[in-house]
Structure formats: C-alpha cells, structure tokens
C-alpha cells in the first residue's frame, strides 16, 4: 500500500513535468500567438499595447505630446487613427488596420501604430 502510493506520486509528478515541458515548448514556439495585438510606438518605444479581439466593446483614446495629438479608435480586431492635429493627416487616411504588420505612421508626431501577430512576410516594401 505504501509502495504503490509512492509510485503514484512519481507518475503524477512526471505527468506534471511533461505538461510543464509541453506548455513551455508551445510558448517558445509561439503556438497560440495568433491573437492580434496593436502596439502604439512613440519615438521608437512601445508606449502602449492593446489586444485586438472580436466582439470587444469599441474604445477611443488620445495620445498627446508637446501639443500634438492623435485620436485612436479600436473596434474588435481593427484599429485606426480617427483624428489628429498633424498637418498632413496621413495617419488618419491610412484607415483601419487589420493585418499583422500593418501600420499607420504619423511622422510629425513620431508616432506609429502597428499590428503585431504572426505575419506571413518578413517585411513589406512601400
């Protein structure tokens, strides 16, 4: 009785170790990272990161610095700059971003919004 219990313990702990190894492996291999997220990058640094999930309630917020502002809207799995006080408004004209790797750049405010997640390509020339 006592011996059997010990073996059970060993099996349980081995199973636990295996599960841990599988989980770690999946994590390192990036399995399950199909979920999209959007990075808000200012001056080359990520200042905010948002998850993009279908069915999430829309949200709007403004990134402001030195008098320059960009109004950003998130709706489910897409994100866009909807308004800004930069002279050219290219960031606004980019429209909705949906694909991994897509980005809207506001050069005057040194701001970029980029969708991360698994992309089929290593880069996009434009």
């Amino acid at each position, binding site marked *: 009785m006592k011996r*059997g219990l010990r*073996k059970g313990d*060993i*099996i349980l702990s*081995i*199973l636990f*170790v*295996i599960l841990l*190894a*599988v989980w*770690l*492996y999946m994590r*390192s*291999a990036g399995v399950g990272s199909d979920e999209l997220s959007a990075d808000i*990058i200012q*001056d*080359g640094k990520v200042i905010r990161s948002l998850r993009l999930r279908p069915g999430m309630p829309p949200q709007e917020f403004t990134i402001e610095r030195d008098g320059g502002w960009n109004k950003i809207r998130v709706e489910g799995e897409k994100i866009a700059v909807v308004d800004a006080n930069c*002279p*050219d408004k*290219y960031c606004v004209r*980019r*429209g*909705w*971003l*949906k*694909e*991994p*790797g*897509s*980005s*809207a*750049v506001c*050069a005057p405010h*040194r701001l*970029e919004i*980029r*969708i991360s997640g698994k992309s*089929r*390509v*290593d*880069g*996009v*020339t*434009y």
Partner: protein
Amino acid sequence: MSYINGEALKSKIQSVIIAVLSIAVIFWAARTYMSGLLEPSSAQRESYRLGTVVRLTVWGKDKALIDRALDDSMAEITRLESLLSVNIATSDVSKINANSGRFVAVSPETKEVVALAIKNAERTNGAFDPTIGSLVRLWGIGTKNARVPSGAEINAARALVDYRRVSFYDKGGKSYVAVGSGQSLDLGGIAKGWIADRIEALLKERGVKSAIVDLGGNIYALGESPKRREWKLGLQHPKKPRGEYFATVDAVDISVVTSGAYERYFEKDGVRYHHILDPSTGYPARSDLISVSVVSKQSADADALCTALFVMGLDRGAAFLKRHAIQAVLVKGGNGNNAVFITPNLKGCFELTDGTMALEVLK
C-alpha cells in the same frame, strides 16, 4: 510458464509506464534545449530617420555582437542623413544648393551618392533626375505647404531641372560637387537606397548573416532567413492600407524597393496630385502605372529606378527593363482590376496573393 499474480503485474506495468514517461520527458527537455541553442535570437532597433520609420532587425547567436552592430548601424544612418538631407541646413546637400554655380567641398560619401544619381539619370534619360529640388519645393507634396503652382511657376522651376549641369571630382583626397546656377539638388529618390546598401555592408563586415534593413519600406534582405532559406517580402498593395500586400517576393541577399502614387499625395478640386514628379513636364507623372517594385543587389539603383520606371510608364518601362536586364514588378492601374507585369527572372520567386489581379510575364 511462471505464474504472475495481480500485484506483480501491476508493478510491472507501472515500471514500464515510468520508463516510457521518463524517456518522453528527457526527449522533450533535450528538444527544448536544442531548439533554444539552434534558433538564433534576434534584436531590433526602430527610429524616425530619413523622414520615415527606420527598422533594423538582426538575427544571430552572439547577442552582444548583434547589439553592437545595430547601435553602430543606427549611428551611421544618422551620420549619413546629416550629410544627405535637404531638410538639414548644415548638410552637404544644403551647402551645395546654397552655393549653386560653384564647387563645394563635400564628404566622399556625398560625392559617391551624387555620382550614382547622375549614372541613373543618364541611363534613364532624365526620367530620374536628382536636380528636381526646385520642383519638389514648389509643389511641397508631403508638407503642409502643398499646393498646385501656376503654369509660369512650373515652367520656371522645370527650367532648372537638368542633371547634365551637375559636376563632381576628387582632388588631393577631397571631394567636390557643383550644381548649375540656381539648381537645387534633392537626393530623396536615391539616398534611402544608398544608405541601405551601406548598412548592409556594415552589418556583413560585423559578421551578421541574417538581417532585414527596412528604411521606410526600402528593404534590404541581408543573407538568408533564419526560418527558411528565403526571406518573404510583401509588396505594398496600391489600394489598401500600409502593411497589406498584393504579392510576395522570395529574396536572398537582395534589395526590394517599391514606389507608388499612393504613398504621398494631396487633393485639390477633386484631382489627386501624387509625389512622383515627371522632370519633363513639371507635374506629377501621368503614368499608367500605380506601383513599381525593383529587385536588385544595389538598393540605390533600385530606389532611383523605381521612380524612373514609374515616370516612364508600362511600355517604355518594360523596354528599359529588358535592355538593362533589371528585375521588376509593374502594376498597371485603370478602372477595373489591376494588371501585374513581372520580368521573366522573377517567375520562380514571385507569388501573387491578390486573386483579383491578373498576372503577365514580360518578354
């Protein structure tokens, strides 16, 4: 035949299970450990340079080496920008323009870019012209001063555009460049490509084997991809937001540069004025093309030729590509679906991902 009781059988099964599970665990551990060793790590630097987003990504096993190579590359980009930018008052280009009609002592790098720009202007018969500065400033496309100039203004600015009036030489270890009186040099159509070439050389010199040098969409795919052999580069879809592509090109140690009318423009009275100016008319090029990508070992050439091919349009462009054995992807616009033309050598590494576009291989 021996008699095995229930207790012994149970213990045997347990031993087998433990043995199998132990092997599995060891296997998993080894695999995870090995993949950690084999998969090179990567590092990235991103910044606003050259009026756009510059992003360098390097893969390799030596983290310290990668970090140093990246930092030095970013510093080099900043240094080269300070020589070549028209928007920096102390740059070589600004000095050349402020002293038009006279020779100005410049860095050897500036002279090299000028020489390459003139080479590309010559072989494209001025479809690419680095003396387009007067027209670029007049239109101001991409700035808040963008406007449609008068015909007289355009004619006056156009008269100053002529690459044949640029001269340069080296003497006593120094380099000199002069533009004609009143002319304005603008290396914006070649500088990004040339800097990409320089960064590619710098990274290789440091022993880097895999990197993506992305200077605002002007990409150099250095070496081979760590995942598969080829890098996969997307070509910006001319009618979709940035980052969405209509085709991919498999690239190994080569540069891909794209120019399109969609990139910078303004609208006035319902007319769209884009940023690719035709040196011969002084107006945004009335091209039948909406996007041009050039694949080349020399990013500087690719950069200059994209603009030139766009100005030339499909027929002249296709003839030029054939004559000079240059690889490119041309997208023809129009009311209906867009047609994509590729040079024959791209056949094996080009994939059209937008099913609504028609593909044709040039002869």
